């Protein structure tokens, strides 16, 4: 809405590229990492031994720290920092425009903030401060064994799952895959079913960890 001079507008395509990189990073690698992360931790459903051997396996990969920083930490940091700027840029008025997609738009921004807080907490207590496999398991189990901790952890995980699945839908629109309104609606239903399935799945994982004798 502000006045902008013609010169600035002609050569400045940087916004476009930054936005597209932001969109891409949400799925590759962050979304893919999230899926693998949940998949690997699904071993907790089988039992303590299965879970600890998977964590051991992950921790024993040589130079894993390089992948952790390069493929996970830096992309998440960029996605979060630029994402916060995008949250600031939009006016949220879900009450004036009570349409399904507008609610999704608002929830995407609310879950962005919850997810960031959750990830920071998760990284500090389960990665940086936990040095051994046992530390990791204890860090998770101790939080989940208190009712408040369980609820907060569940909110964090579900916010992340929603942000990922709804982000997957907008990713497909942003990258020009879904064109028509009907296919967008169908994809919206599919991603929300995926969201529901992942929420149920993560609930089972968290509940199993909470019940572990650690």
């Amino acid at each position: 809405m502000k006045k902008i001079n013609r010169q600035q507008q002609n050569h400045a395509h940087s916004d476009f590229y930054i936005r597209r990189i932001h969109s891409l990073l949400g799925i590759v690698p962050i979304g893919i990492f999230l899926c693998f992360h949940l998949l690997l931790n699904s071993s907790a459903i089988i039992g303590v031994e299965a879970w600890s051997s998977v964590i051991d396996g992950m921790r024993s990969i040589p130079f894993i720290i390089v992948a952790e920083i390069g493929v996970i930490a830096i992309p998440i940091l960029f996605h979060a920092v630029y994402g916060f700027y995008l949250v600031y840029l939009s006016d949220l008025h879900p009450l004036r425009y009570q349409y399904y997609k507008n609610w999704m738009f608002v929830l995407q921004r609310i879950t962005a903030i919850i997810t960031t807080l959750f990830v920071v907490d998760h990284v500090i207590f389960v990665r940086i401060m936990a040095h051994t496999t046992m530390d990791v398991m204890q860090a998770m189990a101790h939080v989940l064994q208190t009712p408040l901790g369980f609820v907060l952890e569940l909110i964090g995980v579900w916010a992340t799952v929603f942000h990922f699945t709804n982000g997957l839908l907008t990713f497909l629109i942003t990258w020009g895959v879904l064109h028509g309104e009907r296919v967008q609606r169908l994809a919206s239903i599919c991603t929300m079913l995926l969201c529901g399935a992942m929420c149920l799945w993560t609930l089972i994982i968290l509940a199993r960890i909470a019940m572990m004798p650690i």
Partner: protein
Amino acid sequence: MTEKKYFILKIKRQDDPHKAPYWEEFHIDYKPNMNVISSLMEIQRHPVNAIGEKVNPVVFECNCYEEVCGACTMIINGRPQQACSALIDRIIQKNGIDKPIILEPLTKFPVVRDLMVNRKVLFDNLRRARAWIPVDGSFGLGPGPRYDEKKRAFAYRISRCMTCGCCAEACPNFNAKSDFMGPHVFAQVKMFNMHPIGSMQKDERLKAIMGHGGIQDCGNAQNCAKVCPKNIPLLRSIAELNLDVNLLALKKIFKW
């Protein structure tokens, strides 16, 4: 004898661009087949508010009275729409005659006075996106290429856009913090890019909407499509342009 019936207009007024807005109510004598414009004209004829004070008549814009010009766009009961096609009978049928009909000026544009706003930025943004076909020249170019009928039918739906500003008003990313061009721009770019002659300058328009405040600022809230009075295919236009700009970007970077 039937008692005299009236309905209430609750209007957000503002005396000039720099003064604070205030609310004022008016009682309008009910007649069948009124719309919001004709009720505002009643106020012009008899500018007395609900508590009997004589006030300055409410300022508003209108032009065509048939929902094709967009001049009378305002927020009626919370929804951006044209005052001419907001029928009093239908609103009363839905909400009852006692519930005030709330009129507000559009919030994303500078208020000139009362319900009148300056929608210039909408037209400026069409210019930013080069949403026209440059065919002017000093000699005749002969007949143009034929227009594919399917494309023409789709383009016709877009051509009904009257730049009223409802989409921009409802868009969460069109605001004072951003330079977002607004949803209507992308429908027009799509239309001119589909045109057999317009498609010759396709990339120029795509580059323009990849610039500052361009298509990348769309956040997929999709309020635009919900409030559009003309059912312009905004979602499809934006989605298809997304593919076009991405391909153009790939071509530019990797010489694809």
